[in-house]
């Protein structure tokens, strides 16, 4: 053995590696603290902004309460009706434009509120405001299907129309010969 072990000399390469790792590690930790989203941890271990962003999304479907603000007569009409929980939007659309017009018209009598259009037959319709007298609307709920509760008023269309002696059994608005939408009766 020509030389004795010298820590300083014989581990110089390891010291370099260790130093490099310490610098690297420190850099990563420092970088991490900058990369954590600002609102993280505001309300909990997540981005507080995310909570606000989700909460800030605008509702698309219109609640009945918005409609009934003006159309209070319908509220009375439906009070005792089996349809009192049926949302307005199923038969009339969301009416966003309609409500905007109504608001304007309240301050400015010259603004006219557009009339509702007839339903185009599409359950995903783009119409803002419509009126349906189409049996498809009624039957989307009331046509008898295996699985419905026994006490739900479901019908077999053909036999129901025959039983009730309906006149135009092929006409789309045949249901309205006997029933109204808001208070369909028995």
């Amino acid at each position: 053995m020509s030389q004795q072990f010298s820590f300083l000399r014989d581990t110089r390469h390891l010291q370099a590696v260790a130093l490099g790792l310490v610098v690297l590690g420190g850099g990563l930790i420092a970088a991490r603290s900058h990369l954590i989203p600002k609102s993280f941890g505001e309300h909990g271990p997540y981005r507080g902004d995310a909570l606000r962003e989700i909460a800030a999304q605008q509702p698309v479907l219109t609640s009945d309460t918005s409609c009934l603000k003006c159309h209070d007569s319908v509220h009375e009409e439906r009070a005792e009706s089996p349809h009192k929980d049926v949302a307005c939007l199923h038969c009339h659309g969301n009416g966003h434009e309609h409500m905007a017009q109504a608001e304007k018209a309240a301050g400015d009598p010259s603004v006219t509120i557009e009339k509702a259009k007839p339903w185009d037959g599409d359950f995903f319709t783009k119409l803002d405001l419509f009126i349906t007298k189409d049996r498809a609307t009624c039957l989307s709920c009331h046509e008898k299907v295996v699985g419905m509760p026994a006490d739900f008023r479901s019908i077999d269309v053909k036999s129901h129309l025959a039983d009730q002696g309906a006149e135009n059994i092929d006409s789309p608005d045949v249901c309205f010969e006997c029933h109204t939408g808001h208070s369909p009766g028995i």
Partner: protein
Amino acid sequence: MNKSHDSAGASGCGSRPATSGLNILNQGTPCSGGGSCGGVSCGGEQRSKADSRRQFLSRATSMVFGSFALTLLPMESPETAAETPLPAPLNGGAVPAPPAASAAKPVLYGFLVDTEKCIGSGKCLSACRTENHVPDGYSRTWVERYVHFKDGTVQVDLVPETGYHESKLPIVDAALVDKAYFVPKLCNQCVDAPCNQVCPVHASFTSPEGVELIDTDHCIGCGYCVQACPYGMRYINPETNSADKCTWCYHRITKNQEPACVEACPVGARVFGRLDDPESELSKRLGATRTQVLKEHLGTHPKLHYVGLSKEVV
């Protein structure tokens, strides 16, 4: 099934404002009533149980990661974070604010599905797709139909989104059927949500009201939560490339509106409400009825309760 609902029956509601974080500050006024929400951590027995479990998990995992993780990573723990209160929810909707009785109590939402009332109209399905811009081929909510035949077999199928009328589905012969019923499905909003547990980046998070939400701007799209949800509620949204699922319409309920599916249900089969308010319809129904949850054996403690399930329902 009618699939023609791209910007789907948004029904001329026009453009939906971009979801901006600042937006909320400019809309409506803080609700004066049941406005104050408390922390995540309290609110009933299940809640505290869940918390102690989380604490245990945090500790266990910390031990696994070792002191390395503890010293190098100042990770925010749910316990401390829970103490930060959230600004009051906004009363942007027209529905009156819930009673102010709960000033000290945190808001905690719950859900009840009454399968004995569901008629399978599919109104909730189209409503959800429209409200939440759910891409075709994915669902945040669906309705299953269970048909028990007299020969002992059980057939399960999905209710079409526009109902059975004109759906062209084969008609089940009622004469062969013992019993049949519809089971609406939506996010169970588990107290011990496995999807939240597995999210590696805190992109899945629990709102102060106990609603499981997804930060689509932070999600890495690994799909682990999709695997972890026992109810098949989650999917990777092909438009955002992030995980997605039912939020109980968080953007509506924080404006005191009902979730879209509840709003759309014509027969009251879906009941949404506050668990922390004993006067809410939900609390009353839950108190008066015998209810079940789905896959109870997995210990997820759903806040979605069912009336009228049969053992075949999964």
